[in-house]
Structure formats: C-alpha cells, structure tokens
C-alpha cells in the first residue's frame, strides 16, 4: 500500500482511471434511467416505487461513504498513510450529499405510502444521526487550522461514529419500525421481482461509479490545494530570507 501512498503516483493513476470511470457512470445512468422509466408499477405502491431507484442507492452510498471515511481514518491514525486523511476529508461532503438525498427522497416516498414525511423510528433516526455525524466531521475539518491536527481529530470522531453504520443496517431487524425490512441484501436472496430489482441494481451501480468519480476528483483537488498551500509557505519563507539578507534556498 505504501507504494500507492505517493500523491504524485496517485494523481497519475487517477488521471488514467477517471475517463473510463466517467464513461461507465454515464452509460450506467442512461441505462438505469431508461430501465427506471419502463419499470412496471408495484402491485401495492404503484408508480411511487420509482422513488426507490434513487432513494435506495443514495442510502447505500451514504453508508458506504462513511465506511470509506472510517477505513481511511484507521489508515491515517495507524499507518500515517499520506493519502488516507485526504481520502477521509474529501469523502465527507459527498457523504453529506448522499445522506441528505436519502433523507429527502425517503420523506417524499413516506408521505404517499405512510401518510407522513417523518417518524422517529430507528431507521430514520439513525440515518439522521449519520447526517449529523457528517456535519460534525465537516465542522471539525473547518474549525482546526492545522490540517494534520484536524485530520487526527476527525479520524477519531469518524471511527467512533462508525458504530452507527451497523445500527442503521440492522435497525429494521432489531426494532419494530415503520421502515420496511431489508429486501435486497438478505441471506435468503432478494425479495423483489426482477422487473424492479434490475433497474435498482443498475441505478445503484451508476450511483457507485459517480461516487468514485467525485471522490477521486475531490482527492486530486485536495492534493493540489495542499501543494498550493505549501508553495505559498515557501514563497513567504523565501521573501523573509531575502528581507533578512540570507540567501534564498
């Protein structure tokens, strides 16, 4: 892994991978939206089942993104991997977006199906907690000026907060909730008809590819931002040396 810890090497690999990943994302979205448009109505929910094709991938991505942040935080704290806190930091705003989308589309699906936009049940509340955890991580990164100190504090919060991810996943099994239980990822196999399952899986793949495109680009941006910061420091250092009469490095 240390071989890939080199930011310059990472930039080159990301540049090579991104065009392919972007193309895959576009193709998957075109296919996913077409399959979504022709998917039959659910026997109970009617056409509102179409909200599932964007709600479920958003919710999966919200949890996957937090898992990546927690894994990156472990890498940052234990191995001091130079890209780990770049990965953790840049995944946070993307995770906020997907969690927000999961909450909003869930509410918009809940109103016609449950008769309410919101209930304080275990699944919804634990996802709201995840949203606040993301906001807390964003606030920490903004509040502490020194990036390495900010990274360490954010890593600790991310690892502690990871306990919420299995709670979200199993909340529908552990507690009685209004939210339906797992119907795709379950031991006995998916409980959804293939006419609805296939568009859902294609949309999930499209969302996942989009996440990786956004994350890789955001990581590249963060590496460039840190280079700009370092070069500005060098510029100031040089100017100070010239003023003091010392030879510039």
């Amino acid at each position, binding site marked *: 892994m240390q071989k890939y810890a*080199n*930011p*310059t*090497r990472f930039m080159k690999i990301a540049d090579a991978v991104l065009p392919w990943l972007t193309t895959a994302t576009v193709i998957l979205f075109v296919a996913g939206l077409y399959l979504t448009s022709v998917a039959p*109505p659910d026997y109970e929910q*009617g*056409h*509102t089942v*179409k*909200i599932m094709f*964007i*709600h479920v991938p*958003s919710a999966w991505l919200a949890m996957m993104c937090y898992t990546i942040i927690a894994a990156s935080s472990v890498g*940052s704290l234990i191995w*001091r991997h*130079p*890209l*780990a*806190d*770049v990965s953790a930091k840049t995944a946070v*705003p*993307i995770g906020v*977006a997907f969690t*927000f*989308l999961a909450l*909003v*589309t869930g509410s*918009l*699906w809940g*109103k*016609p199906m449950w008769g309410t936009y919101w209930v304080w049940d275990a699944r919804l509340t634990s996802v709201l907690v995840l949203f606040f955890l993301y906001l807390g991580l964003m606030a920490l990164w903004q509040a502490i000026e020194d*990036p*390495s100190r900010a*990274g360490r504090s954010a890593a600790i919060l991310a690892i502690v907060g990871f306990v919420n991810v299995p709670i979200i996943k199993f909340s529908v099994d552990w507690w009685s909730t209004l939210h339906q239980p797992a119907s795709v990822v379950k031991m006995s196999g998916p409980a959804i008809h293939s006419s609805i399952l296939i568009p859902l899986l294609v949309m999930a793949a499209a969302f996942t590819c*989009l996440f990786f495109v*956004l994350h890789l*680009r*955001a990581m*590249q*941006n963060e*590496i*460039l*931002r*840190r*280079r*700009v*910061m*370092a*070069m*500005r*420091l*060098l*510029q100031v250092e*040089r100017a100070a040396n010239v003023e003091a009469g010392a030879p510039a490095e």
Partner: protein
Amino acid sequence: MFGLGPHYGFIFASYAIVAFVLAGMIVWIAWDGRTQRRLLAELEAQGVTRRSKRHGSASADPDAVFSGSDK
C-alpha cells in the same frame, strides 16, 4: 400525470432534488479543481517551485511539500 398516478408530484420532486444536488456536487468539484490548477500555475509562473521539482525528479522525493499529512 404522465401515467405516473396520483403521486406524480412526489416522484418528480424526488428526481428533481437528486438531479439538482448531484449536478451541484459535480459543478462544485470541477470548479474547485480548476481553481487549484490555476493557483498552482500562477505560483509556478512566479517562479515558486516545489522542493521535489528543484531537487531533481518527483519520483525520488515524491511530494516533499505535501503538507497536512504526517508523511
């Protein structure tokens, strides 16, 4: 409406919000990338070079100025 039944408003609103938020993320990340590349080019035009570049090849000392991480 559009054969989507009585709850078409909820379906449209969901897709519109997702499209808006994802498009916003894409634009923001692309804009941030452009800004950072422009700032880097401006600094290089002013003669500020990274230590790794001044000391030879980037592979020997990959990112000597990669601050913010405990390398």
